[in-house]
């Protein structure tokens, strides 16, 4: 009886550990993999759907929030530089065009995994303005160590005063 209680307690602990791992790091709905991939085809991302190149970057999401669409691929994030306002919920929707990549915001413990054939969605709110490097956090090939994006969190007022083109990405033009 004592053994049994110990075993159940251990199972609960392991389960809780799994849950917390999923919640903070992976952020992929479990049933996503049960139905057999209903996400975009990684090789035709540029032809149709929400990840065509003119649709990448920050766009208005549901009222009061922002949606950022990104593609992770060997060995660049596209768009490579994103600018978002502070204190506003930002929904990231990312996918991968080839291998598994992981986007992590350096200096915070948030991140999300880019999986080919699936869209990963997660919502973050950046409380204070600042700059974050976004290194790829999952080995993806020879150029992995140089795969790095940039996230610029600016005050809300400054964001509102920017031109639509500047709000989508902060890449040099």
């Amino acid at each position: 009886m004592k053994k049994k209680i110990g075993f159940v307690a251990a199972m609960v602990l392991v389960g809780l550990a799994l849950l917390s791992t999923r919640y903070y790091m992976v952020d992929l709905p479990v049933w996503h993999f049960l139905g057999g991939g209903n996400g975009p085809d990684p090789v035709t991302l540029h032809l149709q759907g929400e990840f065509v190149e003119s649709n990448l970057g920050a766009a208005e999401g549901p009222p009061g929030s922002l949606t950022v669409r990104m593609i992770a691929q060997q060995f660049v994030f596209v768009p490579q530089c994103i600018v978002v306002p502070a204190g506003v919920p930002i929904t990231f929707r990312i996918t991968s065009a080839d291998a598994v990549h992981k986007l992590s915001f350096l200096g915070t413990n948030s991140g999300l995994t880019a999986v080919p054939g699936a869209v990963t969605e997660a919502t973050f709110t950046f409380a204070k303005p600042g700059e974050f490097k976004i290194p790829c956090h999952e080995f993806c090939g020879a150029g992995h160590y140089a795969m790095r994006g940039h996230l610029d969190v600016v005050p809300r007022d400054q964001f509102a005063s920017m031109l639509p083109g500047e709000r989508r990405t902060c890449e040099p033009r």
Partner: protein
Amino acid sequence: MSHASQAARPRVGVPWLGTLSVLLAITLLFSGRDSSAQSESKNSEAPVRIASNVAWTEETLAIISRGDAFRGLLLARRCNHCHGEEGFSSVPAFPNLAGEDRLSFWKQMQDFRSGKRTSPVMQGIAEGFSGRDSADLAAYYAMLPTASDAQDNRTFPQAMKGPSRASMAIRLIVFGDGQRGIPPCQSCHGPVSYVKGAPPLATQNGNYLELQLEHFSTGNRANDINVRMRSIARQLTTEERTAISQFYGAGMGPGVNSR
């Protein structure tokens, strides 16, 4: 002893399953919405732009792999004048095609035909080649050797302009620049690893490379799938673009004659 444990087994199994199903239920509860099912809200301001009609699907790869090098040899007469009899151009602004990657060659021909890549000369010529012709040509050029030939009228290894920039070029080609998010050239263009559609650069003309990098950085050339080359070229300075191109054009890039 064994009899007792056998009798106890079904009773042990019940809390096991119970715990598991409760955990599964909690996991499903907490795992949020199915993100793919969400309606695709589009950024309505920007019209849809498609970089290239080519995608590396199984069908595309099958078409390219069926290329016939002998048929390509006959078709290549139309290309010889600019790209050289041995696939090495006599004008430094034209690309060398000897040892060209098949996927890369085929994609560029399709992009010229569809106008996704603009060139006053090549758009007209590429219209005369079907998808099958392009696959044949790709097979032929991929087969041509890249070894040097004193008899051939080629410009390929040219003395590097500004040899002091060689170290800058080596750094970017081999290591890239992690701080700016510039991956090393050789991680996609070889010889370290290859990415579908990335041409080998080891025997390419420097002036041609420089021109293409500049076009990528300004967006004049925008047929790269998922903005890959544009993202990288935009971050390079003019000096760095020149250094990399001239370094490859001098035949000093990694992977010479390796394909």
